[in-house]
């Protein structure tokens, strides 16, 4: 029996006659009648979800990042191993815990016992892991999670919560990720889900909901940090015969994947936040606008919407409150600018994604010219907590930036993934404590925050607290919370050029400053990285940057020069090297580097010759003086060389020199 089904014929909950105590009944029921049998049935359903009904529960992360690192093969191997052994086990597909560096990640739990976490599990390692765990040896695990009555940190294995990756984390939106099965609504309900919705519909007026969100200090997690409660209030106050509530799941910032992770791992939390928001503003219809490239996120959200409709949490007269609300999941067709509110609205209406001048803001005239609120996935995922346990949210963060934020750590860092930490955590804590510092013993060069509209910050800003105002004060932005670490092998000018290439291609072309200005900036940067730049180029970049910031129509154009302006300010020496010495200190800019063979290291294996896609390597007999023998040795023809670096990457003796 599913936890969501009727316990017996006495339960009168149905689509036509929804029960207002439905959720409370599933969590501590039954409520309308006293029956020991029903009580036991519901308790058993809950226990089965919370404790597992089998001797062993094996959870494996099957989100996009898990799948990319081979969790499907690990899953198949686990399935085979467990059934081969005849163990009474339940194999669960869960969302991602945010520890991308350890994917595929497997958690094995004995009923009522310690769970053990195993990282980077491949198919070959599966039999050994299962054998060891069953025989009571968790010494090979990455971490253990103690349950009631078991030893803490046995066999010298660290506790999960005390891993450097987890120590500073404070989980709110990601609380269920990696724990619940995202495809099952009853798992979310058993873990306390939809209680906030029930409370809102049964006990609170829309204005009270808005006040709660306002006083908790929740700000938009999509980038700009606008107070969420205020946004709702404007929309509630606006006049219109229909209102719309949109969830922005068009996560487009390269380097940010927190929305994907939240919606893939715990889609019902996002949906619950969305329904509460709709109730607060008075909307009867909503959209979840999902990025097309993130197919699994869309699929999980659609499954969640289906389940919520089936159990009466969407549709007419939700939980008997008289409130009607339904949702469509719409796939974006792929355009970065769709993340801008008015561009998103244009897309839903079947137009090219072009922003328009604001005001009027969507709160007064949005989708189909009706009052509309658009909130980001992560913003909405905070909402249920604000209703049920406001304290938990407000306890952390800074005075102006309350609560937590999920940051995505990627680039040249030891541990990559998504970490949820209190706002105000410093960049140093995030990169060096949680992320474990720069990978491969390289030197830290810069950190890029906030995606294409953000900035590149140097070492001196590492103690900057991550909150909306602090980042803005140094020319960057919070953005969606992507944190990309660059090391000494990354070229700063190339990074700026990369972002400008991105925004130039993604500019919708409506306003002149963005359409033409970005192209000009990109040309100047290309000139510099090609070794053709002059000092005047720098002042031109500054003036173009200022013009865009002041005149572009939307945030895409206004913020696009930030990567250039911040790198010029904080890394002037890199620009000087490209302009004056015509050299790229990191050996990245292709026109400023060359490849050659170091004869003393070359063993003549011919791999570089075989793998050169440009046929630029000759492999001919030469006389080697040191060995006094004739052997084949490669030489690179600089005229043909495409500088792709494949010889450099493939040489087993590191005999290819890049300079």
């Amino acid at each position, binding site marked *: 029996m599913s936890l969501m089904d009727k316990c017996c014929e006495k339960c009168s909950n149905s689509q036509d006659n929804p029960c207002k105590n439905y959720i409370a009944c599933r969590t501590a029921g039954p409520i309308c009648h006293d029956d020991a049998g029903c009580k036991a049935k519901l308790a058993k359903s809950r226990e089965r979800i919370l404790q597992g009904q089998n001797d062993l529960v094996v959870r494996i992360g099957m989100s996009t990042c898990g799948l*990319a*690192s081979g969790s499907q093969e690990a899953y198949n191997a686990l399935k085979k191993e467990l059934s081969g052994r005849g163990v009474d086990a339940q194999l669960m597909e869960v969302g991602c815990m945010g520890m991308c560096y350890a*994917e595929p990640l497997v958690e094995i739990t004995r009923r009522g016992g310690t769970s053990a976490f195993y990282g980077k599990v491949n198919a070959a390692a599966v039999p050994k892991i299962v054998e060891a765990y069953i025989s009571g040896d968790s010494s090979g695990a990455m971490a253990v999670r103690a349950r009631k009555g078991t030893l803490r940190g046995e066999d010298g294995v660290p506790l999960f919560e005390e891993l450097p990756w987890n120590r500073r984390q404070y989980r709110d939106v990601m609380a269920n990720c990696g724990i619940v099965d995202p495809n099952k609504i009853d798992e979310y309900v058993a873990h306390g889900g939809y209680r906030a919705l029930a409370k809102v519909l049964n006990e609170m007026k829309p204005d009270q909901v808005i006040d709660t969100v306002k006083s908790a200090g929740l700000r938009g997690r999509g980038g700009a940090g606008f107070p969420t409660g205020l946004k709702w209030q404007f929309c509630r106050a606006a006049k219109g015969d229909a209102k719309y509530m949109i969830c922005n799941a068009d*996560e487009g910032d390269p380097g940010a994947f927190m929305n994907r992770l939240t919606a893939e791992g715990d889609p019902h939390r996002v949906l619950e936040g969305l329904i509460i928001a709709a109730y607060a503003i008075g909307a009867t219809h909503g959209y979840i606008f999902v990025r097309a490239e*993130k197919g699994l996120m869309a699929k999980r959200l659609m499954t969640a919407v289906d389940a919520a409709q089936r159990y009466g949490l969407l549709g007419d007269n939700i939980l008997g409150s008289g409130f009607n609300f339904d949702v469509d999941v719409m796939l974006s067709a792929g355009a970065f600018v769709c993340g801008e509110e008015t561009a998103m609205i244009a897309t839903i*209406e079947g137009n090219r994604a072009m922003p328009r001048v604001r005001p009027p803001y969507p709160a007064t005239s949005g989708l189909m010219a009706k009052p509309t609120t658009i909130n980001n996935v992560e913003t909405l995922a905070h909402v249920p907590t604000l209703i049920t346990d406001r304290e938990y949210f407000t306890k952390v963060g800074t005075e102006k930036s309350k609560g937590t934020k999920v940051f995505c*750590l990627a*680039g040249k860092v030891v541990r*990559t993934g998504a970490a949820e930490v209190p706002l105000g955590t410093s960049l140093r804590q995030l990169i060096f404590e949680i992320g474990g510092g720069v990978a491969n013993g390289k030197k830290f060069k810069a950190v890029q925050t906030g*995606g294409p509209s953000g900035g590149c910050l140097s070492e001196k800003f590492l103690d900057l607290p991550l909150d909306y105002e602090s980042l803005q004060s140094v020319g960057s932005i919070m953005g969606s919370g992507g944190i990309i670490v660059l090391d000494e092998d990354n070229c700063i000018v190339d990074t700026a050029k990369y972002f400008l290439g991105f925004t130039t291609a993604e500019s919708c072309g409506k306003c002149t400053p963005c359409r033409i200005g970005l192209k000009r900036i990109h040309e100047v940067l290309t000139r510099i990285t090609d070794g053709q730049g002059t000092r005047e180029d720098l002042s031109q970049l500054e003036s173009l940057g200022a013009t865009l910031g002041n005149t572009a129509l939307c945030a895409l154009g206004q913020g696009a020069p930030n990567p250039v302006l911040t790198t010029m300010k904080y890394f002037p020496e890199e620009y000087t090297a490209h302009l004056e010495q015509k050299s790229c200190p990191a050996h990245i800019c292709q026109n400023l580097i060359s490849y050659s063979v170091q004869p003393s290291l070359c063993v003549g294996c011919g791999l570089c010759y075989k793998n050169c896609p440009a046929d630029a390597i000759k492999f001919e007999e030469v006389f080697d003086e040191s060995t006094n023998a004739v052997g084949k040795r490669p030489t690179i023809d600089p005229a043909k060389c495409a500088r792709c670096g494949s010889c450099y990457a493939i040489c087993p003796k590191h005999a290819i020199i890049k300079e």
Partner: protein
Amino acid sequence: MRKKITMESLSKEKIDEIVESAYQRHKHSNPMQSGLIILMQEVQSEIGFLPREALEKTSELMDIPLSHIYGVATFFHQFRLRPKGKHIITVCRGTACHVQGSGDLMTLLRQSLRLKEGEDTTQDGLFTVMQVRCLGACGLAPIMKVDEEFYGNVTAPNITRVLNKYRSESA
């Protein structure tokens, strides 16, 4: 996966039929134009791209000017107006992938497939190379996708191995 329609079987009647059936599913969108992008997505997922005939039929059925439909089709990355190869290789060009060298991987891949400037599909129709802004698996950068299969931490030697795998499958 739904069975792909081969180019040979793609007559104008067949295209009209596909567009018509998508139209029947979305004609009640309110306003009707809001069903346009979803309709085009469905047609593309069946045919593999949007042939001119499909756009013309859409225009006729939805009573939207062809110029508007063409505008939408050319604006979004998802829509293609030319046929695709048998396998779609998608290279992620997000920031994390960029700093881990995905630009070089793209160059290498295009060279290995002998693709000329402006081309995205190999002569033999086996591969189409596309780039994507960000696949959101940044922790495993650089990342690429062949059809629905993900490859993380891709290196230069990997690329040859992956390509050969698909080549030998269709040989």
